[in-house]
């Protein structure tokens, strides 16, 4: 029987809030009906758990960053396609110090962060920029839910790497300085809607429905639809001003054309090369991976890096292009 | 019919021999009084008759069959330390035996059936003098009242063999006499085989048709544990008229 029912997971983050709105406002149903399918959008609070569930086969699609898409589903043998490049972090991730004013002051500090996450990657990039090594600091794995309280209430915690909304909270602590943020490495931390490649291949309707609803919402957002923004602000547990502040550091691709341009740019493979190098060095590609080439990554236009016979992560621009051309 | 035969039975706890060389052949319907010094093993023999424990050596047969491996309604018991159910009132404790028999599913009767069962046990409760305390819980009873409750509870099922461990120990002479009459009447009517431990020799000779006395016959001063008690006296009271009715082996 042909598959008609699809499940897509999302979790709370500034750039992904529209998915919640799509479910609540009925827009998702509208677009799914249009292509004769059903799409259930499920909110999962724990980001890692949502990716794990997707990887284990519980969902057909899930939102995640480019790095997690590589290290979790792709490294786990689940052939995944980055259907929509929604935005990239442009200051949404950052490093905040209590003692010190620059990245160089990180040397010798204990840093609270979610290890092996994009925060870790950001830290590595920041250290690179001042020729420091990870050995020069010590990282303390701290869950994202606790990072604000850890930094705010404990004298033991002097440096953190985190993302919004936690970043805004820690940056507001008296005497704290934001010494580095993702605006300095633009386009490297990308927020994606990832779907299972096989499912997508068999059911292009899913890709169309998801892309269609996304860009309808992007248009509303760009136009400053207050009702929608209010809704998303509430859902992320803050108010309109707070949510707008988070959006300000998120480079949203409101127009499908911009997203297509980003996904087809020559910069993307270079970014992914840095990400996979970092991932490999930290063992994120699994013990089976003997080199960083173990998992292949494909880009629009047929370019691949890594093992071309084992392509598990595919950046796709086809559906976004349909949206850009108004063919959805 | 419930003739009890015990053949060369030994019971040991660790290296302590409690009972040794017990041989008995008790005809059905006999009322045996068991006497003997404290700690000699009378309770232990009752526990063995109840299948609560297995003898180290030897065997017990009832009507020629090996003793059932678990306690059952054929053998009723009144324990030395009165042990009624703390969560049931006096009359609920007594009626329990009937409920087990008549409500196979949950062991609990309701409505008219319950009332009927309560009516049936009323005379037993009256006979043990607990009519005033019908709705009290065991925790609210005096020592003697608890002991009488245990007796009433055991009698209701009319077991073929009744094992009683100092059942009248905590009772005043008046109440004790009433209890004697009650047990005696039931024994006569149902032709039960009764084993009763008692420390009151007069009581023993008065009630029973046979007296069994326990004591150690061998002593080793260096290893007092090495020898157990055995039956030193097995005395049928042939002058009792009731003995005439007892089926001879």
């Amino acid at each position, binding site marked *: 029987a042909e598959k008609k029912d699809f499940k897509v997971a999302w979790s709370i983050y500034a750039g992904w809030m529209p998915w919640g709105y799509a479910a609540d406002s009925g827009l998702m149903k509208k677009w799914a009906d249009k292509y004769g399918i059903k799409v259930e959008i499920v909110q999962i609070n724990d980001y890692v758990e949502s990716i794990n569930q997707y990887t284990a086969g519980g969902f057909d699609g899930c939102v995640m960053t480019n790095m997690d898409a590589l290290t979790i589903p792709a490294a786990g043998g689940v052939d995944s396609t980055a259907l929509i490049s929604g935005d990239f972090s442009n200051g949404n991730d950052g490093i905040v110090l209590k003692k010190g004013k620059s990245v160089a002051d990180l040397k010798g500090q204990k840093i609270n962060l979610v290890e092996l996450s994009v925060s870790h990657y950001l830290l590595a990039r920041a250290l690179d920029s001042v020729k420091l090594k990870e050995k020069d600091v010590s990282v303390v794995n701290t869950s994202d839910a606790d990072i604000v309280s850890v930094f*705010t209430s404990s004298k033991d915690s002097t440096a953190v790497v985190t993302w919004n909304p936690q970043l805004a909270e820690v940056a507001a602590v008296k005497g704290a300085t934001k010494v580095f943020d993702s605006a300095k490495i633009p386009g490297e931390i990308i927020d994606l809607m990832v779907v299972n490649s096989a499912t997508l291949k068999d059911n292009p309707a899913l890709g169309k429905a998801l892309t269609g609803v996304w860009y309808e919402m992007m248009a509303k957002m760009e136009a400053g639809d207050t009702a929608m923004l209010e809704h998303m602000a509430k859902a992320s547990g803050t108010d309109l001003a707070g949510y707008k502040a988070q959006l300000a550091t998120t480079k949203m691709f409101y127009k499908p054309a911009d997203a297509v341009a980003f996904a087809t740019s020559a910069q993307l493979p270079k970014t992914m090369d840095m990400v996979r190098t970092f991932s490999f060095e930290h063992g994120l590609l699994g013990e089976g991976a003997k080199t960083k080439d173990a998992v292949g990554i494909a880009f629009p236009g047929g370019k691949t890096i890594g093992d071309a016979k084992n392509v598990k992560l595919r950046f796709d621009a086809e559906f976004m292009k349909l949206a850009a051309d108004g063919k959805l | 019919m419930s003739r009890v035969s015990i053949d060369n039975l030994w019971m040991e706890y660790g290296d302590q021999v409690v009972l040794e060389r017990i041989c008995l052949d008790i005809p059905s319907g006999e009322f045996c009084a068991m006497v003997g010094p404290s700690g000699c093993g009378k309770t232990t023999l009752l526990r063995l008759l109840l299948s609560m424990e297995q003898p180290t050596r030897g065997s017990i047969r009832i009507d020629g069959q090996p003793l059932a491996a678990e306690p059952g309604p054929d053998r009723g018991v009144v324990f030395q330390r009165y042990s009624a159910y703390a969560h049931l009132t006096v009359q609920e404790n007594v009626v329990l035996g009937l409920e087990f028999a008549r409500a196979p599913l949950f062991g609990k009767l309701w409505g008219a059936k319950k009332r009927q069962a309560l009516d049936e046990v009323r005379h037993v409760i009256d006979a043990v003098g607990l009519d005033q305390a019908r709705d009290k*819980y065991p925790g609210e009873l005096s020592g003697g009242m608890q002991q009488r409750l245990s007796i009433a509870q055991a009698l209701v099922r009319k077991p073929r063999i009744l094992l009683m461990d100092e059942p009248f120990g905590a009772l005043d002479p008046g109440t004790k006499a009433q209890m004697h009459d009650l047990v005696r009447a039931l024994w006569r009517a149902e032709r039960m085989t009764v084993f009763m431990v008692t420390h009151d020799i007069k009581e023993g000779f008065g009630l029973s048709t046979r007296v069994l006395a326990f004591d150690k016959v061998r002593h080793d001063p260096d290893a007092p544990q090495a020898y157990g008690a055995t039956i030193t006296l097995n005395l049928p009271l042939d002058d009792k008229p009731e003995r005439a009715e007892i089926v001879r082996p």
Partner: protein
Amino acid sequence: MGRRIINRRPGKGSALFWGALPFLAVLVLYVVFSALRLAENPGDKLLPALSTIADTIHRLAFTADARSGNVLLWADTASSLTRLGLGLLLSTALGLILGIGTGLIPYVRAGLSPFIAVLSLIPPMAILPILFIVFGLDELSKVVLIVIGIAPFLIRDLALRVEAIPAELVIKAQTLGASTWQIITRLVLPNVWPKLLDAVRLSLGPAWLFLISAEAIAAQDGLGYRIFLVRRYLAMDVILPYVAWITLLAFCMDWALRTMNRRLCPWLARGAS
């Protein structure tokens, strides 16, 4: 003559006073430290002033949420209590059935007791991905997490209690002609019932903990979800009343179970034994 301290009993008023004292102490401590921190930094979110908390409570408990039209606190409470109730009910049933089974029946004990012991020692949080795959991510999985969290404790505790029933009582029931099933319904159940309620009371804390953890992972309402949501903003003015509310709810359950125990087991109060 000075009586031993174990024989001196406070009167009713005095008991109330001593009982309230530690709560007052905590409240005073909170107010003092909150004032200190707020004096240093008026924007401090960690220990908000009582007035701030009161405002938040008013907003959460008495005004409808713009987005959903619900009054958040009540909606959250309703969903959480449903999950918790189901989880507790299931766990209690399991505790009763398997606890009595393993405590009373040697073959069941041989087969299940080591397995349940091991099961009770597996930290459920560590195998969450597998649990979610098996039980899905909806209501069921939350209830199951509560059950996995507390049922092994209930089973083991109850089994210990069943084993502690004096052998004489079981033997006596057999001489009265009771079958295994009758022994369970008329002797074992009433005997362990008060202990079961006590055990459920003791596992209320863990049950809430598991509920909150489950709601923090996948839910769109519930008290744990709300706490999780605002935690990233360190909105202690929401978290503290929610925690207090959870504690109050749990305390009411505790109280209800205690009262139930007294009602259903009159023999415990009457008489000494």
